[in-house]
């Protein structure tokens, strides 16, 4: 996923290795628990010793949001549990399924595999940010999915839709093979792939016509 420039930028500051090391070091609680989350501030939560929350500003769906985050907190957790943007789903907690896909500066990325601190100063877009804020109109991708009746249980839908948003910008005239490749970082356990692909092709068609 993602274009070279964006990935390069990220890797300069946070290599995959340092990311993993950071998570292991701070979330020393690992073994039986998978990835962890810091809870809502409203609960008066104290974090575990050694993990200090820091107040940062994030640009999410066009708005600056002030939020306290832990050093090891993933973007998906911040979105879901600090900002209450629950449209971003957690399917696997570690980059296997794509349910948590969001856009970072327009590029689709797994929210579970980025630290929130990595996205400071960058534009984060979630499924909640796709509709036109003034008119409530659905994005072209959402319109396409609605027309084609996409998705079954739809737990994967927000992630797929974010990948489609990124796809139509990079390649607005994909073949079905290219669209499948562009969406191959997202998993659908209902295996509604045929219909999802039809939605993606329709989304590209709509994008070309504007």
């Amino acid at each position, binding site marked *: 996923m993602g274009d070279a420039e964006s990935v390069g930028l990220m890797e300069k500051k946070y290599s995959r290795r340092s990311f993993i090391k950071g998570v292991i070091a701070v979330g020393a609680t690992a073994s*039986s628990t*998978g990835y962890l989350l810091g809870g809502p501030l409203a609960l008066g939560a104290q974090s575990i010793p050694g993990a200090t929350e820091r107040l940062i500003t994030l640009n999410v769906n066009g708005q600056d949001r002030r939020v306290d985050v832990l050093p090891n907190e993933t973007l998906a957790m911040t979105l*879901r549990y600090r900002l209450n943007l629950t*449209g971003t789903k957690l399917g696997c907690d570690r980059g296997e399924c794509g349910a948590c896909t969001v856009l970072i500066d327009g590029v689709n990325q797994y929210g579970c595999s980025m630290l929130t601190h990595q996205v400071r100063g960058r534009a984060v877009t979630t499924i909640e940010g796709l509709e036109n804020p003034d008119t409530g109109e659905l994005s072209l991708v959402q319109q396409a999915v609605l027309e084609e*009746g996409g*998705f079954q249980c*739809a737990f994967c839908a927000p992630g797929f839709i974010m990948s489609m948003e990124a796809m139509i910008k990079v390649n607005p005239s994909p073949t079905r093979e290219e669209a499948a*490749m562009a969406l*191959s970082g997202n*998993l659908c356990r209902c295996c509604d792939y045929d219909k999802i692909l039809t939605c993606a092709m329709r989304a590209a068609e709509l994008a070309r016509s504007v």
Partner: protein
Amino acid sequence: MADKLIGTDIAPPDLVAKITGRALYAEDFRPDGMVFAKMLLSPMPHCRVRSVDASRALAMEGVIDILRADEVPQREGPRESCLTDEPHYEGEPVLAIAAVTEEIAAAAIEAIDIDFEPLPFVLDPLETLRPGGPTAYSEGNLFGRAPGAEQGDPATFRDFKWTEADFVEIDGGRMPSNAEAVSEWSKGDIDAAFAGADLIVEEAIVHQSLTHHPMEPRTNMAYWENGKLYAHVSTQSTQRTKFAIAGAVGIDPEDVVMIAEYCGGGFGSKISGSTPMQIPAIFSRKINRPVMLRITRYEENYVGRARPGFQSWVRMGFQSDGKCTGVDLFIVEEGGAYGSGDNGTAGAIADLIYTPENMRFRAVSMYTNTPPKAAQRGPGGAQIVSMLEPLLAKAGHQLGIDRLEMRMINAPGPDVEFGPRGSTLTSVHAKEALEQGAELFDWAGKRELSGRREGSKLSGIGVALSPYTAGSRGRDGLMIIRPDGKLYVHQGIGNLGTHSVVDTALPAAEVLGLNWDQVEIVWGDSSRGMPYSTVQAGSQTTHAHTRANHAAATDAARKIRQIAAQSLGGSPGDYELDNGRVFRRGGGAGLSFAQVAERAIQMGGEYDGHTLPEDIHRETVPAAQILAGEGLMGVAKDNYGGEGSVYTFVAGFAHVEIDSDTGVVDIKEFVGVTDCGTVIHPRSLGAQLYGGCIQGMGMAMTQRWVFDPQYGVGFATRFYTARPPGFLDVPLNMKWAAVGIADPQSPVGAKGIGEPPVGAGAGALTAAIVDALGGTCLCRTPLTPDIILAELEGRESPFGKLDQHVG
């Protein structure tokens, strides 16, 4: 019925919520004061808790309390509790901690000093059958009424073993001729069938176990308010889960508010919710705060259920014309920690798809120390189709008969009788599905691909027939026309992704002459009133609830006509319903449904639901009472009756290319055609058909559980180690169709679709691989590239013939 809506693509009313992130799944709720629970999972496959010291954990800032096994309902025998001090599989929840954040709860779990006593364990059912082999429970490896026990005697544990002589045959690669079976049935004379057969095909076949891994793990949240339990559960079935959780927690079902508007897939693993749903329910009562139990993917692997594996021997006899005359099947099922019974259906379906006159079925299902098993889409059926269709292909190769012809000769017709009780079916159009599929696939044109080699690519084509139960009778429908003139169809069935929660309302709209935008679906919250419903399992829903909603809509239509006749004169039979109005046939006076609803409220009695039919289920009564007085009520039991079982058939066709350099199988093309009666909603039917077939491809190719035999712990615990099909694993070239002949015993004519596509996807693939390999059956699923490559290179298989849990 006028077909204004049935058979057309309608807009599911929940789709906008699903694609904007507004759809709330269990993990998306945030009541005030909500805290997080985390479970301590057993690190061993079988052990006993010796001691627990939680003082360090409970002293941590932010930790609220601990929940132990002695605070939750425990049941005798091999029956699951939500927490246990004697875990019977690695990953079984032992205790839970609640804290203000999930992170603190997890840190507290790590701060618990717990000591386990390791106990003997067994992973492979054949190992527990061996004389002297270990047992999954300290008390034994089988649970039930002992042989010779009286009716009414309690079930007990016993140690069930086969003999040394049985294992001499097994270790020699043969079916144990005299091994004792726990379930057994036969028909005809199997020995005579084999004596007279022109060809006998005999194999030992392994089907490995695999997890369900729905996209949404079984996260649950609960709280109590005014003595009522508010349960947010990830579940396939809403109304039935209300009763399941009430029973598990020990409260009156009417004290449960079940909220489950969306479920991120279950595939049989969340039929009535799941065992972990008890933890937040009980914990929140203890600490008087809402409790969220977020299940991670890692935890889901353990508590999330799996399809049981089979180790089997089969012998099939054929006449020279390709007709199967005898099937001798022995299944050893891996029951996991809490047992499973897929083998019975597997035996019946083997009988149904090969229609042998002679059949012997024998099976044992053994407890093992692996995570619990449950129905997985097409339980028993999908495994056996995937295992036996390659044998039909092999027999076809040996007899020199086209595989489609073999499939047709052995397919059941409408008068089929099968299984231990000679079951009959309401409708069978399997041959039509095969014919239609062969045309769509261009079987005749593709026959030349069979076994063709081009460079490193070997081609093969395969066909499979997969039936499964697809209906049930006698549920209730409940709906109300409110003074806004709209029909509100109250659905107790869950919104599990199949669209049946929407699609089963179509017949009601049709009966009442409504357009789709005049219909609202009420679902996902038991406080809004839900009728007695089936579980969303066994593909029953579409059949059962198109009937129930048809019955309730017919009740509403009768009442509407009576109101019209009373208000406008004439007799009820003079009136027609269309477009939200009732009017006199041939023109003349009429009423809008809004007016009818007002009138019904004034008239009371049965019209607005103050008087209810006597034959509706007691579970429907409180639901109808919630709605009484709010409009014109349609409420009825499905009394349409019927004889025989309801089965849907799917014929699957696959074209594969095997790369002989890598062993990788590329699925080039797939066609699925179903006999599922009347098509209600084509787009959702197609999605179900493809989705099930692709799940079958994953089952046949990549997904399986792998365990370390020495320590009994799982290796393939995540998506990437037991990979379900992704975009690049499935053919872009897929086609589907439906035979579309109505089931004569339902007023709507529809049968279910969920289960049978899985076997069709898997079986067509495994049969196509036999075809590409020139008639050699590898007799194992999943068929990972290493297995295929070993065969192609003439090396010994990487696994023993009967090995389970390998990869």
